[in-house]
């Protein structure tokens, strides 16, 4: 029941927020903040429960809710929550709050409808993170898309039309592949057992022929990777992130990209373990290429939001690299990277939005020397630039390094290539700081510093970044059973590369070594 609450609260509050516009301008904002806070608290409640009950093996969820919907086609209202989803839902609610604070002054027209769309999209995202019936999953997957499209198309910047089209077409094409694959899976289930089923646990036990598995895996892979924005399916991402209003950019980069990542972890990898282990090096290659490609293009940009968008591609490359490395360490790093990237990119977009609001431009060539005028903004920008370049002690570092540590045993060459991304991250992050906040002040344009609310929000994100950077256990311990589960099918499958199993045995040796003295 609590799971349905998580989804329904934002969705039901959405029309309320729309109506709230009539009462006062700020009513929709407060309604949205209240809703997301409730979601946040509910998730924290779930998080504080004992996670040790969760054993390995699929279908063992911390909280589960199951009722039938269309039994004839094997469709049910099946929600399940485990360590991975609880972390991501918490992130969603939190990033949602950031997005609303960030658009507090920016959005002045159709305030109610804006927040209605935000809440609907977030409800869809939470549904995606909870649904373990594939039909239901797809329903939520599409549910989050339309409000997102509206957010970009109505409140976006100058080129919003083409950007929103591009976003819609790319993600919709990905969804189509996904839909075909989901239906094919259900039909295959009917073929083998005589009844169709969209249920995760049923499909998990399905054995698919090798050739079929290849095609289905590809569809599942591309469908999710499009959302993640990894090359070569990333073309929509820079345009969309740049043209979307600040709040939508934060949601897109901070949360929507995570739904793709979640899909890969939840469905693509465990559903097709055999084929996946063959294909994993190629995906890792795409990840490594994405890291470098995104970083190089980030260095090219003069538009600050575009720079951040490309840095996001680069960071999501680390996720791909880690998620497909097949070691628990790399997977843990990949999840950490999701959380860390959500926090840092949210803050970066928030500051890019603040800059645009103050100077009516995103072009860094027209900025410069802002440190003296807006010291708060500059300090926070420096902090998050450091987070983005992977400074140790902050959450991004943990994510990136766990990924690199974990994937070195699987793919040394790719890992070394990916490490070069760290140098480039320094180049674009510091370049951004230099061009906006340091140097000569271009023109005297009086601008106010960050408001207390915005500064407080950024400070809160900064504290979270440091907390997760110095005490990543908070996240890692919650996701550990899930990641452990993910590694096992790869180990069990016959056609695996032998490194992962080696690493597992090594880690057991190591733990015994530690406990000895």
């Amino acid at each position: 029941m609590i799971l349905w609450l998580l989804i329904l609260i934002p969705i039901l509050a959405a029309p309320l927020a729309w109506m709230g516009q009539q009462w006062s301008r700020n009513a929709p904002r407060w309604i949205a903040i209240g809703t997301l806070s409730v979601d946040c608290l509910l998730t924290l409640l779930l998080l504080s429960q004992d996670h040790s009950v969760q054993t390995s093996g699929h279908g063992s969820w911390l909280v589960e809710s199951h009722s039938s919907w269309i039994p004839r086609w094997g469709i049910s209202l099946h929600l399940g929550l485990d360590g991975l989803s609880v972390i991501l839902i918490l992130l969603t609610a939190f990033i949602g709050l950031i997005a609303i604070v960030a658009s507090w002054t920016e959005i002045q027209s159709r305030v109610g409808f804006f927040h209605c769309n935000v809440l609907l999209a977030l409800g869809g995202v939470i549904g995606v993170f909870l649904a373990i019936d594939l039909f239901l999953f797809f329903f939520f997957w599409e549910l989050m898309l339309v409000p997102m499209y509206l957010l970009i198309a109505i409140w976006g910047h100058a080129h919003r039309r083409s950007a929103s089209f591009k976003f819609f077409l790319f993600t919709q094409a990905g969804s189509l592949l996904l839909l075909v694959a989901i239906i094919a899976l259900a039909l295959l289930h009917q073929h083998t057992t005589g009844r169709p089923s969209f249920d995760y646990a049923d499909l998990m036990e399905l054995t698919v022929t090798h050739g079929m598995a290849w095609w289905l895996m590809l569809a599942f892979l591309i469908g999710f990777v499009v959302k993640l924005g990894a090359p070569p399916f990333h073309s929509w991402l820079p345009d969309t992130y740049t043209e979307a209003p600040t709040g939508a950019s934060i949601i897109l980069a901070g949360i929507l990209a995570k739904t793709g990542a979640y899909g890969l972890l939840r469905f693509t990898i465990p559903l097709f373990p055999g084929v996946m282990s063959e294909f994993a090096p190629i995906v890792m290659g795409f990840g490594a290429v994405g890291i470098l490609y995104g970083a190089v293009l980030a260095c090219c940009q003069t538009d600050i939001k575009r720079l951040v968008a490309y840095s996001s591609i680069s960071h999501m490359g680390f996720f791909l690299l880690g998620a497909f490395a097949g070691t628990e360490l790399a997977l843990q790093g990949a999840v950490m990277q999701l959380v860390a990237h959500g926090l840092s990119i949210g803050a970066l977009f928030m500051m890019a939005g603040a800059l645009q609001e103050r100077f009516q431009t995103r072009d860094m060539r027209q900025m410069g020397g802002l440190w003296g005028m807006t010291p708060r903004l500059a300090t926070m920008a420096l902090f998050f630039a450091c987070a983005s370049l992977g400074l140790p002690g902050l959450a991004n570092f943990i994510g990136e390094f766990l990924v690199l540590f974990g994937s070195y045993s699987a793919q040394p060459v790719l890992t070394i290539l990916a490490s070069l991304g760290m140098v480039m991250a320094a180049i674009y992050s510091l370049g951004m700081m230099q061009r906006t906040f340091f140097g000569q002040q271009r023109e005297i344009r009086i601008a106010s510093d960050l408001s207390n609310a915005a500064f407080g929000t950024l400070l809160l994100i900064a504290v979270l970044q440091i907390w997760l950077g110095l005490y990543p256990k908070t996240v890692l311990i919650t996701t550990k059973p899930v990641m452990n589960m993910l590694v096992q099918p790869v180990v069990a499958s016959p056609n695996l590369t032998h490194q992962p199993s080696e690493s597992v045995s090594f880690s057991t040796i190591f733990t015994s070594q530690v406990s000895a003295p």
Partner: protein
Amino acid sequence: MISLLWLIPALPLAGFLVLALFGGRFTRQQVAWVGCGSVGTAAFTTALVGWEFFQGFPDHESYHQTLWNWIDTSGLTVGVSWYLDALSLLMVAVITGIGFLIHLYSAEYMAGDEGYARFFAYMNLFVAAMLTLVLADNLLLLYLGWEGVGLCSYLLIGFWYREPEYGTAAQKAFIVTRIGDTAFAIGLFILFTQLKSLSIQQVQSLATEAWPVGSNLATIVAVLFLIGAVGKSAQLPLQVWLPDAMAGPTPVSALIHAATMVTAGVYLIARMHHLFALAPLVQEVIAVIGLATLLLAATSALVQQDIKRVLAYSTMSQIGYMFLALGVGAWSAALFHFLTHSCFKALLFLAAGSVIKSLHHEQNIFWMGGLRRHLPWTFWTFLIGAAAMSGIPLITSGFYSKDWILWSVWSSPLSHRWIWYGALLGAMLTGLYSFRLIFRVFFGEVRTQPTGEPGLAMRVPLVVLAFLALTVGFLEMPHTLGNVTLFSQYLSHALPTMELLPGMDESSETREQLAVTVSALLGIGLAAILFLPGSNFSRRGADLSTGRPLVTLLQSGWGFDRLYDRACVRPWFLLTRNPGELLDRGYEWLTVGAESCHRWMSHTQTGHVRWYAATVVVGTLVLLGLFAM
């Protein structure tokens, strides 16, 4: 008491946090109190911890403290834990002690600056990061400190952010060192993958067991660590950032780019000496890099015109000596030179800062002169520093440390004779460029009128450091002179002592020492002939800094900047010139295709109802025909 170890890095960190959050509301005096006080109390805590450490020494060679488990997942277990032994205690003492003096000096030096609180916040953060680096028990924590000091170095070089060149210098410093850091990180990946541990002590014992001497893995890891060390310590080929880093305020140059951060590479190699011992080839490379850097930097220092750039090149050169010592296996000698160097080089920078401040931020030595009478305190302390750097025998610390290194190079089984000759030439050049500064700046006629001596807060650190620059050397004196071995005995608990070649006796040591003495004095004498105002050569108005091609080459630091500019920077800018991207073009073709398809198809849509009806009929007939067939 020793359990207070965690306070040593925590105090400057707390100072940073206080200054970063509330610095804007403090008065300057409060800022100075917090800034200096945090480092001062850290130094005091170091004294307490050191006292207790010596009580148990040498029975308890190391002390270990874990604060919390930093990362503990899936086989990677890394704690936020400190490791104190003879080596790290030495480093901590230098960082907090000299750090405190420099903070004290900055309280006056930076007094007029608008970013006073920001400056002290960065400096405190730097001290905290540097202490983390040297106290870290595992390599990941060390890496945290390693990147942390890099960040602070970046922030402090670009401290005066309004100057775009300073920002460029800061970025250059960070990016060049980050190249080294990345290599270091890759080394960590390999180490962890192979040995499943990152604890410094555990890794080294595991490596010694698992890898034979000269094995490929050991060599690769050692090379990667060496690249990291080379980047941080501004050695060839990643040395280009250090001269530009002089853009920062002078106390920064003294603390970060002379006394502490740039010696982090030396510390890393000394800390990982078991690993480097497994790779003799790499050790030889270290020695050669050290020698090459020390000669390159010394020759460049000869012709610089900016007083701080002279000192920057001299720093590179002196760290070259330390690398040389590490390369030949004289670990303790390298650390001894680190100790003396951080005293006399901090002194030189602070004295130079005093000169610069009194000359209204004039840094060109050709606009200086005759300051001996106007700034007596500065003159005498600078003279002591320069004397220590050139290694004037018997009375200066630099002599003892440099002599130890040269004797090690002479007598080590890992060394070659030509390396020794090179190092000897370097000693001569050191005397030459040090005293060129003295003669140019403090002798002759006054070219820029100074404003007068600095105040007490700047004078005290100068005097204390001058005292140290003279006396620290007495901790270790060679057999032939007094035979004091306090320092080597102390460090022998953390670092192995070097074995001597057979046939190295006192007489050969005496001969070697004479050679060192003569070369240093020769350098100073040559400087007097060339640069002392009133000397023959000097009267003809000549200096080495005229526009001859060789001099231009030397002035640019052997043209490395230009080389890198051509080979890396320009291609990079060419690559990143265009913000568009190729892949996007591909998708654009897709839309162009769809559009032309649409244009073609839309011809069928005439808008005439009868046309549509006719097509429906024809279509139906065709379908019926198809079915009929």
